[in-house]
């Protein structure tokens, strides 16, 4: 203990252990404490949280890392499989086939829904993006602790690159979706262009929720065990495989239940995509002010999620 104490300078008086006792150091006008010394040479506190504007700048500076990391993981995903990247396409198609078999044929959810197959695959593909981006981002900090502890970068890069990765995958499946829709006899119209703003708003929404979940998941890793159940509940109540309208019409549920289900973000974005791409899905099936709701969800989640994530920036990697 004693040697360590001898090395500890006290804050009040400059410790002057010196090789030249003839010239007392106290005469020199110089910073007195270590904090002053740091200030004199422009040193900054290590590991402090940057301000919000400078955080945004740092994140923008790392945009190439975010996309490169996303692309790298996308490429690494099926690199050991024989069919390789083809699985990016086959997996959601098989998913849709399973749901068609269970819901379309066995449970007869297709009853009363015109163009059930386009309706179902649009729903499944779009939900696939929402659900898996939220699920994967829960582990984006906690599962990358090695990276967080080894390198310095704005931590929001991690959940964002997860969403970018899944968005790249969504674009691939959207290409397949267009082909499937054409095969099902849908005709391309100018309305299809509405898919672009719908996808953009959905991406912003998912990025925001991803950042919220990344922070929660970094503090309580156990939450990632619960996510599959939460997400499944959300999926079944968002009308991915059936039409909320035609299903709840026969049950005598209160009107507000339908409204709540239909204005939940997942249902809003899925229905907007259906409205854009499917001829028989007309505007009556959408809730009122649907675009305002879509923009609202995107802004609320995007801005709120970013600030919520930034607030704990210096704490990721602790422990």
């Amino acid at each position, binding site marked *: *203990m*004693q*040697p*360590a104490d*001898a*090395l*500890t*300078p006290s804050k009040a008086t*400059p*410790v*002057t*252990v*010196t*090789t030249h006792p003839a*010239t007392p*150091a*106290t005469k*020199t006008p*110089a*910073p*007195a404490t*270590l*904090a002053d*010394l*740091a200030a004199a*040479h*422009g*040193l*900054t*506190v*290590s*590991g402090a949280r940057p301000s919000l504007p400078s955080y945004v700048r740092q994140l923008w500076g*790392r945009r*190439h*890392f975010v996309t*490169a*990391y996303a692309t*790298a*993981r996308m*490429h*690494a995903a099926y*690199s*050991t499989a024989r069919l390789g990247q083809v699985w990016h396409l086959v997996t959601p198609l098989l998913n849709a086939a399973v749901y068609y078999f269970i819901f379309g044929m066995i449970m007869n959810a297709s009853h009363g829904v015109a163009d059930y197959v386009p309706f179902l695959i649009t729903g499944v593909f779009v939900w696939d993006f929402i659900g898996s981006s939220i699920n994967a981002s829960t582990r984006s900090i906690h599962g990358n602790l*090695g*990276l*967080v*502890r*080894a*390198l*310095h*970068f704005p931590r929001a890069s991690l959940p964002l690159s997860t969403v970018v990765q899944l968005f790249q995958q969504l674009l691939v499946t959207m290409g397949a979706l267009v082909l499937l829709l054409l095969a099902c006899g849908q005709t391309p119209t100018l309305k299809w262009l509405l898919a672009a703003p719908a996808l953009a708003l959905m991406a912003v929404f998912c990025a925001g929720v991803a950042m919220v979940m990344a922070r929660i998941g970094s503090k*309580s890793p*156990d*939450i990632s065990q*619960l996510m599959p159940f939460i997400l499944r509940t959300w999926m079944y109540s968002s009308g991915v495989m059936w039409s909320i309208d035609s299903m709840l019409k026969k049950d005598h549920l209160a009107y507000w239940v339908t409204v709540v289900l239909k204005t939940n973000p997942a249902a809003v974005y899925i229905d907007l995509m259906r409205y854009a791409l499917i001829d028989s899905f007309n505007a009556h099936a959408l809730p009122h002010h649907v675009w305002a709701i879509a923009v609202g969800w995107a802004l609320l989640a995007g801005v709120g999620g970013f600030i919520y994530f930034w607030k704990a920036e*210096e*704490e990721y*990697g*602790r*422990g």
Partner: protein
Amino acid sequence: MADTKTASAGTPASATAPAAPATAVYDPRDTRVPTVIADEVHVVYKVNGAGGRKGGATAALSRIFSRKPAPGMREVHAVKGVTFVAYKGEAIGLIGSNGSGKSTLLAAIAGLQPVARGRIYSHGQPSLLGVNAALMNDLTGERNVVLGGLAMGMSKEQIRERYQDIVDFSGINQKGDFISLPMRTYSSGMGARLRFSIAAAKDHDVLMIDEALATGDADFQRRSQARIEELREQAGTVFLVSHSIGTVRETCDRAIWLESGVLRMDGPSAEVCDAYERFTSGR
């Protein structure tokens, strides 16, 4: 008890301080430029799942909502009040027995491990030498060079400029075109060489190396030591954590000896290494 005895019997820091002006003690007339200042740094970290029963699923569930600490949670006081000033141009070796807090101190300097008390000031962004975590075994060496560079904050142009240097330095292509193969096909030595080459490609203000020198064959070790020398001249300060006292003696001009989180001695590497060796052989 044996601990304190050896400490006073060895060379206590107070005795060496006058002979070694490069101690933690700050001298106001000093004209050297400080790059890292650690001011009474304490690091405490929480260990999750340290022993004890964690209870069943319902207990875990209620913990999530009640925000109570898990019963297995323990606090480890890893660094206890360490103070020093590092200057431009220094290569500082951190020595000490296993679990003495060396790596934790480095993580705290890098700003990756929050400090419980005290402050760490630094010039620029101190970086740990290591991009291992950013690299992916399923990708080719080529893509990993780019990915690692981006992860360290290099721009695309910088990576393009240095790409050939990185590949040449790693010597991966000496035995054929390995850089275009996935990293999982590399031998462990080749992988380690490529990782070091990527990490060392960037110029850092303050560079910290945690036991990274023992990789590769003799030829590569010589080259990496030369590269560290170069980084030190360009950059400023190099910190090196090593269990090999020989490496610290060769590479560093100053050494800091940590023992159970307490700064035991700080001075020219030869003196500190001598004292440390007496301490370890005396146990």
